[in-house]
């Protein structure tokens, strides 16, 4: 269990709703849910969620911290925004899901074997490196995210698709060597570092206040 998680448990005691309001992106909207369930019924991967958004919101209010933050549910979000436009209370549900996922990861509670957890982290690492996504490296890292043997299997399985992309020049082996990049990588990295610092400080500060 991460130090930060221990600190948060200590800080908020039984008030998980407040913790979410303070530390999760758009988390102050959670209390506004009126439990109609339209989000759950509108989700393309709804059947695969252990707890659809409506339920997650209820669990947050009921203080089920551990269950919420270790859940695979919010990692099922495809960012289709269907829930957002249909929610009669206009909750930014997609963003709250992203926010919960990020917060779970920040505290070290996210399910590490969840494929979208891995992919999302790979994607971020990939873009942070050079400022732009390197699709080839992202794809390969993805295939091998479950280890070497699995990776070779997946690669073979996906070879047909890769070949199609290569033939139509929508994938380039050159990406392996250099690849696209922003020119001002230094400024770019400094900027991101600063943003991360500010955010970390904000999480730190809010907790103490309550």
């Amino acid at each position, binding site marked *: 269990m991460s130090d930060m998680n221990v600190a948060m448990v200590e800080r908020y005691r039984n008030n998980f709703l407040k913790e979410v309001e303070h530390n999760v*992106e758009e988390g102050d909207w959670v209390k506004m849910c009126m439990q109609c369930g339209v989000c759950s019924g509108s989700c393309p*991967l709804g059947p*695969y969620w252990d707890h659809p958004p409506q339920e997650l919101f209820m669990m947050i209010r009921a203080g089920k911290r551990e269950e919420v933050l270790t859940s695979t549910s919010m990692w*099922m979000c*495809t*960012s*289709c*925004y*269907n829930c*957002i*436009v249909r929610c009669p209370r206009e909750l930014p549900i*997609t963003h709250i899901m*992203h*926010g919960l*996922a*990020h917060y779970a*990861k*920040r505290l070290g509670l996210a399910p590490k074997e969840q*494929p979208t957890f*891995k*992919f*999302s*982290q790979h*994607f*971020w*690492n990939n*873009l*942070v490196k050079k*400022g*732009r*996504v390197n*699709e080839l490296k992202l*794809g390969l890292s*993805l295939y091998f995210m479950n280890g070497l043997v699995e990776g070779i299997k997946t690669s073979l399985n996906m070879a047909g*698709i890769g070949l*199609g*992309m290569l*033939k*139509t*020049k*929508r*994938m*380039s082996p*050159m*990406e392996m060597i250099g690849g*696209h990049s*922003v020119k*001002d990588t230094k*400024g*770019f990295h*400094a*900027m*991101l*570092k*600063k*943003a*991360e610092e*500010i*955010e970390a400080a*904000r999480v730190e500060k809010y907790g103490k206040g309550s």
Partner: protein
Amino acid sequence: MATKEYSFYPGCSSQEGASSSNYLVSVESMCEELDVKLNTIPDWNCCSASIGYCGGGELPRLTLSARNLALSEEHNPGQDVVATCAACWLATRETAERLGEDDDLMAETNQALAEAGLTFKNENKIRHMVEVLIDDFGYEELGKHVKKPLEGIKIAGYVGCQTNRPFGIEGESFENPKYLDKLVETLGAEPVENYEKKVSCCGGALAFSEPEKSQALIKEIIESAYDGGADMIVTPCPVCQMNVEVYQDKINAKYGTKFHIPVTYYSTLMSVAYGRSAKDSALGGQIIRAKQLEDIANK
């Protein structure tokens, strides 16, 4: 008509050798025909789409888009920012709106941007290319440029998610937007009326991490296009295009279907209809070849 100029945010997938490089080629041809000048934002970076949230917190992600917008304000002053990728448009516009509403976040963002010597003022509109076509030109004007009508082709307009929600195109509904159908009609082709899966999700980025679940969604999108009698599918989104096109063999293998339907961009259709060559229209970028378009382009 005078040249229209926009500040252009191409996005990672449209780079050379990337998955929607063909989109960019056809967009450029289309813009030439419409006398539109796209001024690429110098040294733009990735927006993190809507999948970078695991590693990227709210502020770092907002800062990514704010950097692009700050660069645009500096180098292409006064110009609307135009994106062709749905995710790019969404992430960028979302950033502008959220920072517009939250002064604290705006201050923090600028604090981070200062590290790269930039300032974001939030001065310009962020638009999708489709908005430019519909609002700045209109169907009538777009129709005037048609040299080779796409006669005899029935096309399912797959709008997908992120060009449609949460912002969407002005005047269109979330549940049944009509603009792709109208555009198809403008180009002389026949739209599939009541295309049932028009705004259904293809799985987006989860096509990588949850392939089976996503392919089940994609199957329905293609099936529904066939049910409507479509010869091909058209979409405004790189992720939609790729997901719906490249997994057809996999879906066939799993479900015993015989899908083989080309999936193109609206810009591909427009480029062909505007009389440009197969090369200019990037028809070579179709993994499933669009024979009917090739025939018209080669005429």
